[in-house]
């Protein structure tokens, strides 16, 4: 069993230890790669580019890495920021389909367990098939456990647009998963 902590591996990376990078990469590569692939579903090359850039950022930040909180949470923040930066370069994450932003039932709150029971493979495919705006909002909400306002600030959307997109995302996922 690999007993060296992530923080210790980061210290070794800062000292130029290439083997330490291989170890930390092997531990977390699936999380970074999967997240980037979902964010850029349908564009595997861009997802891979963002995943690679995330790892390069980890290397460059190793010297100043403080180890506050878990390494995994910090790593995923780096990945998320890289993905958001790339999404912003593409232009505003706004839907071209006005029905996505139509009124949603009063009191709607996204529940945390809505995906818990489904198979991971099926859910991946269903998420990939969502329209980009719904997918981006859903991933930010789930990965970061952020509020509607926080997600809106990151994507340049009003909080009620975020809420509407989450509602549509849940509806779409339900439909897609029921059909499978």
């Amino acid at each position: 069993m690999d007993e060296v902590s992530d923080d210790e591996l980061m210290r070794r990376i800062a000292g130029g230890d290439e083997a330490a990078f291989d170890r930390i990469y092997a531990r977390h590569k699936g999380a970074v790669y999967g997240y980037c692939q979902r964010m850029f579903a349908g564009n595997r090359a861009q997802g891979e580019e963002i995943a690679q850039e995330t790892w390069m950022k980890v290397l460059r930040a190793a010297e100043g890495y403080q180890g506050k909180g878990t390494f995994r949470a910090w790593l995923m923040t780096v990945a998320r920021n890289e993905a958001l930066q790339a999404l912003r370069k593409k232009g505003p994450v706004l839907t071209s389909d006005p029905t996505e932003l139509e009124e949603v039932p009063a009191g709607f709150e996204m529940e945390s367990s809505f995906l818990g029971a489904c198979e991971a493979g099926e859910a991946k495919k269903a998420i990939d098939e969502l329209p980009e705006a719904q997918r981006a909002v859903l991933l930010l909400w789930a990965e970061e456990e952020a509020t509607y306002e926080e997600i809106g600030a990151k994507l340049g959307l009003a909080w009620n647009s975020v809420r509407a997109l989450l509602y549509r995302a849940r509806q779409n996922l339900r439909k897609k998963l029921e059909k499978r």
Partner: protein
Amino acid sequence: MTIRKDFEKILEQEPPAAFDTRVRAAAREEMRNRRVGFLAWVLSPAGIGLGFAGLAAAGLAITWDRNVDRGPGTEGMQVAQQLDPEMLREAALLAELGVLREHDLWQRLERKKWPKPKS
């Protein structure tokens, strides 16, 4: 179970071997570049200048202490650290080349009206 835990399971995806190879190669290159970059800086005029300045500061501190008889180098070092870095760099270079003798160094210090050592 938190939302994040749910999603970690759902989102995880093993990258293809080709991607692994690419990232590992890029990481090795990045780490080597950082090492080479540091070495290049050490050998650059700026790095060498700073090295000489450090040597000069230490040299001045020792000389100062010897002349003023003020005990261990701490006080002399403090004085040397307050001197003009350009002057130190120049002094270090000249001393290195054998051009500047200790006597000349103190003359320069006098002209700049820095504290005069005891004779």
